[in-house]
């Protein structure tokens, strides 16, 4: 548990450092995810170290967003000033993106299976 958390933070830290030093547009935690994936693939680190801590964090990830959501209250006035375009664009576009992404991915996925190429 402690070992897993420590290594997760170390990967986040290295991602953060690389992102800042090279002034990259990718945030440190996303880079850290990439580094950890690389570390696991190259067997530099063992997945067993992480399983417990990762499971604890990922099972409760939704909870960690609650305070971020409460932060919206600070910008209430900003949203209220142009609420109509903001609401319409935010709500509709969220559904548009899900429909476009999901439909295209599913279509390509099933056509790849129809080709009979890969099934393992």
């Amino acid at each position, binding site marked *: 548990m402690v070992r897993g958390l420590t290594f997760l933070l170390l990967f986040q830290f290295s991602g953060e450092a690389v992102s800042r030093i090279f002034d990259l547009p990718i945030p440190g935690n996303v880079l850290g995810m990439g580094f950890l994936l690389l570390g696991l693939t190259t067997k530099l680190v063992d997945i067993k170290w992480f399983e417990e801590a990762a499971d604890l964090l990922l099972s409760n990830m939704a909870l960690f967003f609650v305070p971020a959501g409460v932060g919206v209250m600070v910008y209430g006035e900003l949203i209220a000033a142009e609420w109509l375009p903001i609401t319409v664009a*935010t709500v509709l576009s969220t559904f548009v993106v899900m429909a476009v992404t999901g439909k295209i991915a599913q279509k390509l996925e099933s056509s790849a299976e129809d080709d009979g190429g890969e099934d393992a």
Partner: protein
Amino acid sequence: MLETPLFGITLTLVTYLLAQKLYRRVGKVWANPVLVSIVSIILLLQLFDLEYRDYARGGDVLVFLLGPSVVALAIPLYQRREEIWKRKKPIMVGVFAGSLASIISACGLAWAFGGSREVILSLAPKSVTTPIAISIVEKIGGIAPLTAALVVLTGCIGAVCGPEFCKRIGITSPVATGLAVGTSAHGIGTARMLEVDRLSGAVAGLAIGLNGLMTTFLLPLLIAIAGNW
């Protein structure tokens, strides 16, 4: 009492536990525990005339845990790497289309409904995870705090309605569903997908990073095209 993180953390945990209980009892989409907790806490703070800063002292501790959680998304990705690698083409094309659709639909709708230039630009990266969205919007000249708020709102909508919506319009594959919700609703959507299905959650986590990268490069390009129009 308000000087330590104790208040914010306790309030969030108590509210979240009660919200989960409510969700289990009514089982309706709108009773999503994250959404109910956010609304309840905002109302409580306003009712007792409490400052957001006093809440945030504890809230920020919980938000901090998002960092290692995002790193931990590598674990389900690694566990399901073969299933995911086999579908690299649908994943890449799907996220690319979603990223493009997000920018065009958000900006187009805001423009059609009379949004100002700043608001239109602030909406452009709304489907991208917060840290990437903020750095994008600072570069293109939107209002960073507004973007931060819209990113969270988008995430909530996608997390609350995403899995149901996908099912209703015929998206049934776990990879396509995870990709759709992750591309549209970033981390908040991913958290929801992890509760539904681990493979969907892993793919949604991958979509956060891919969509962030694609939007970072696509948006300045689209703005240049729109500017020359």
